[in-house]
């Protein structure tokens, strides 16, 4: 984990430049698709802070982004607010408070219980927006207008413009990336890593892990709120499906697909999933089957996700390993798995405690 090859950041930079210039040359349809990828990438990155870095598997992440999206929709449609800073602040506040509440309850548990409780609490948020008629019911609501940033009557940013939206979203993606890089390198990030690897010992060394876990939830929730704001501004539509467990699971799949515990992985995962869905949906009505098979293949052959082969030293060795894994796959499927790496490790539980 501590030794990253320089290949990955380089690749990331190249991809970034490509992505940055794309709307100037690209087809309108694909620019829209790219915007979708960027927003999903932000959401997945925020979930990866919990899942990949702190080891907190949350199954209710869409509740944060979805609640933010609903509040934006209500402010625009019912209160006529289109001021971008106001809407953004409301999004972050909504998602932050939701994350604080869900996190406060959830961090008392871990492992499978954490999954169950985040799932249950996420569903409560789902039913709140689904059942309370104020929010628009099961069919969802269309936005009457889009967020606009205007100073003294001059429009600076109009998110209904496809290209403008794309660049705003991209800036948010880069900002999120930088923010999380900084946080993960800080002492705070070190404790989160300790929580993932050995929570009991991290606590015994003098860290109030509960507090750290809650802070991670709130930070992830705030970023998810940003993603929720962007998503509703992008599609002009929000429905209960945006915050159900199905959506949460999709984000989790994006994280696993791209590579947990990396910041680039979730973005690559979003890229892969959105493109694959688009391609497969054109091909056949059974596109979900194709997507499912792809996800299974990645999980089976690339346990570190799509970034796995790149993240390992130099990439070449990683690719070799990936091929070896492909070779060994039949054995894996039938349970003749050779001793796994984890089995060689000493017990990492809380010891005698």
């Amino acid at each position, binding site marked *: 984990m501590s030794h990253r090859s320089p290949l990955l950041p380089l690749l990331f930079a190249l991809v970034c430049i490509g992505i940055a210039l794309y709307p100037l040359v690209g087809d309108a349809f694909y620019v829209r698709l790219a915007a979708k990828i960027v927003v999903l990438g932000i959401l997945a990155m925020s979930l990866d802070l919990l899942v990949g870095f702190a080891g907190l598997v949350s199954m209710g992440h869409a509740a944060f982004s979805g609640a933010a999206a609903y509040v934006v929709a209500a402010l625009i449609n019912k209160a006529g607010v289109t001021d971008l800073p106001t809407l953004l602040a409301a999004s972050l506040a909504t998602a932050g408070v939701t994350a604080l509440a869900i996190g406060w309850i959830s961090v008392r548990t871990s492992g499978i219980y954490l999954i169950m409780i985040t799932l249950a609490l996420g569903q409560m948020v789902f039913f709140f927006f689904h059942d309370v008629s104020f929010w628009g019911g099961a069919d969802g609501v269309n936005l009457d207008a889009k967020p606009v940033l205007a100073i003294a009557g001059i429009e600076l940013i109009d998110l209904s413009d496809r290209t403008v939206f794309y660049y705003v979203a991209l800036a948010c993606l880069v900002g999120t990336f930088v923010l999380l890089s900084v946080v993960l390198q800080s002492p705070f990030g070190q404790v989160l890593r300790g929580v993932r690897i050995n929570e009991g010992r991290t606590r015994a*060394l003098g860290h109030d892990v509960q507090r750290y876990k809650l802070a991670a939830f709130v930070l992830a929730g705030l970023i998810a709120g940003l993603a929720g704001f962007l998503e509703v501004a992008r599609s002009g539509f929000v429905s209960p499906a945006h915050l159900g467990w199905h959506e949460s699971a999709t984000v989790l799949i994006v994280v696993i697909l791209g590579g947990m515990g990396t910041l680039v992985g979730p973005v690559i995962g979003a890229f892969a999933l959105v493109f694959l869905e688009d391609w497969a949906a054109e091909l056949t009505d059974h596109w979900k089957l194709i997507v499912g098979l792809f996800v299974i293949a990645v999980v089976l052959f690339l346990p570190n996700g799509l970034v796995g082969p790149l993240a390992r030293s130099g990439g070449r060795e990683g690719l070799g390993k990936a091929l070896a894994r492909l070779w060994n796959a039949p054995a894996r499927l039938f349970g003749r798995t050779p001793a796994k790496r984890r089995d060689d490790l000493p017990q990492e539980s809380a010891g005698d405690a």
Partner: protein
Amino acid sequence: MPETILETRDLSRRFGGLRAVSAVSLAFERGVVHAILGPNGAGKTTLINMLSGDLPPTDGKILFEGADVTGLPVHVRARRGIGRSYQKTNILPELTCLENCWLGAQARLPGWLNMVRPARRYRDVQARAERALGLCGLEARAGTQAATLSHGEMRQLEIGMMLATEPRLLLLDEPLAGMGVEESWRVIDLLKTLARDHTLILIEHDMDAVFSIAQRITVMVNGCELETGTPEQIRTSVAVRDAYLGEELAA
């Protein structure tokens, strides 16, 4: 007048019907190496777990430096100056030795929301972590992944992580368990060095080690304190010989 650093009053812990520790009242003096002996299952680890805060007692009180710490969670006690090592190696295997110690050294930072400055820029933390690594004898292994260490080295790291938090009271649960002879002596030397400016509570089965380091010894049997005294008193105690040392000799 010797000063008491840690005191237990009728400390008890039950697991269902089993009384793992029952009504143990002990006073540990500052600057003294106090060993706890007892056969397997005597309740030594359970006692240490209650002192460190890893396990809540079912009854009784713990006073550290005069204050009641019975209800305090383990991380608060660690910050107050109680450090511990585990009988079963309890490290972060994915991290390097230095990073393992780093996590302990970082617990001394004021505040907890240190989210901006990169961890490696905290020179004082780095210094504490390196010092702890040096003390436990793993200086040369700073960049080695902990999972790849030998068993003995893992035991050393276990101690190093505890030292990185700069505790005043050290709770050591069988630090020599499974170590080779040479490694053992190195750790015994380390314990002697630490004894100069720390208080040690030491659980250890290695009699030679215990009698060469400890100034006071408590013998536990079946969760109860059997006898407490100087090494000489314990060596010549009839009760201890009957209950424990005899058993050792017979084995």
